[in-house]
């Protein structure tokens, strides 16, 4: 040993190391935490705006009536028992409908199948008793054909008979 080191040099070294660790920690922390984190709470604030900006597929059924294409059917439905059933329940989401139709008029099909009616009106013990329901076997003439529901009932304004 040619030269004596200062008795406090080891303390200095520790403090320099600590300082480097703290600075590195602060840099890494700022890199890892997203910009808007903590804006509203312990989460990324911009996530809220991103969620709110998502596009709407299901529209309000007033759009169907105000589009002039289906005003008549809408008015019929509005006076009938199917008033609370929105157009899109049977005809599909509004957002896909006009484009689909424009692209290929034959592609947009209307479901006239009995199964569509029966999803709501099939006799089921779990259903509320006041709801109109049918037992398929009892509803038709015995041995006779099963005509589609819409041959007797108007789906936009159904009534008995």
């Amino acid at each position, binding site marked *: 040993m040619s030269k004596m080191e200062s008795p406090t040099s080891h303390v200095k070294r520790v403090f320099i190391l600590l300082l480097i660790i703290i600075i590195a920690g602060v840099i890494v922390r700022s890199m890892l935490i*997203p910009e808007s*984190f*903590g*804006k*509203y*709470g*312990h*989460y*990324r604030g911009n*996530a*809220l705006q*991103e*969620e*709110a*900006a*998502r*596009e*709407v*597929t*299901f529209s*309000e059924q007033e759009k169907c009536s105000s589009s002039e294409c289906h005003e008549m059917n809408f008015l019929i439905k509005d006076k009938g028992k*199917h008033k*609370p*059933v*929105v157009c*899109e*329940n049977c005809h*599909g*989401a509004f957002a896909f409908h006009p484009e689909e139709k424009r692209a290929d008029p034959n592609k947009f099909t209307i479901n006239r199948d009995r199964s569509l009616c*029966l*999803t*709501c009106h*099939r*006799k*089921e*013990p*779990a*259903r*509320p008793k006041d*709801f109109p329901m049918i037992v398929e076997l009892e509803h038709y003439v015995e041995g006779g054909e099963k005509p589609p529901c819409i041959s007797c009932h108007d789906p936009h304004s159904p009534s008995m008979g």
Partner: protein
Amino acid sequence: MEFEKMNQQSRRDFLKKFIQGSTALSVVLMYPVPSFSTEKDKKKKANTNYVYLVDIGKCIGCGKCVKACRTENNVPADFFRTWVERYLISFQHEVFTDSPKGGEEGFQPKKIKGEVEKGFYVPKLCNHCSNTPCVQVCPVSASYKSPENFILVDKERCIGCGYCVQACPYGSRYISPNSHTADKCTWCYHRITKGLQNACVQACPREARLFGDLNNSKSKVSKVFHRENLMVLKPHLMTNPQTYYKDMAAEVI
């Protein structure tokens, strides 16, 4: 000899000071650190109290809500943000439950052992609990509670660990096979903020589902909420759900 003695003393001193120092430091660290949100941000807390009401007595199990939710939120096949369960209770008080395809295609008649004494449908969805376990367990703060008390998932931060899926006592969450992140009912946050109704609420032909702000005295929800007898799912878990059920039987779990 002299040197050794001195060295021993200093080691004792060192240990003493070390213990004193670390005690003092831990006391300082125990002092509550101010949270991320500042006073100004806290004022942004929404002045709303949204609740979701389900009227079991009105539900006909048509599954239009499940279908509407799938279309609106692009929910992958075989996964559900909302679903409908069927309960059939026999005379011997045996309870049969099923939910074929989440009730999306409606329900086919089902034979059970004995006569059906009681039957009903129970629509289920995220309860948006005020004291939710799913947000607490998230290690990366991807699950969060919005200022309006909507429980949402930040898909960018989510690492898909699935802790929240396990933590939810209502089975409302799933890991999406498309994004490989947690996914759940958002109460249609994107529709509510645009002034629309939730897709499922709008699709329901029987008004079995209602959603609205309790602080708005003119809302339908506030009238039903204060007049009817309502119940929540699994109240013993103290999650404080914000989805309330009317006419709920004791058999419902």
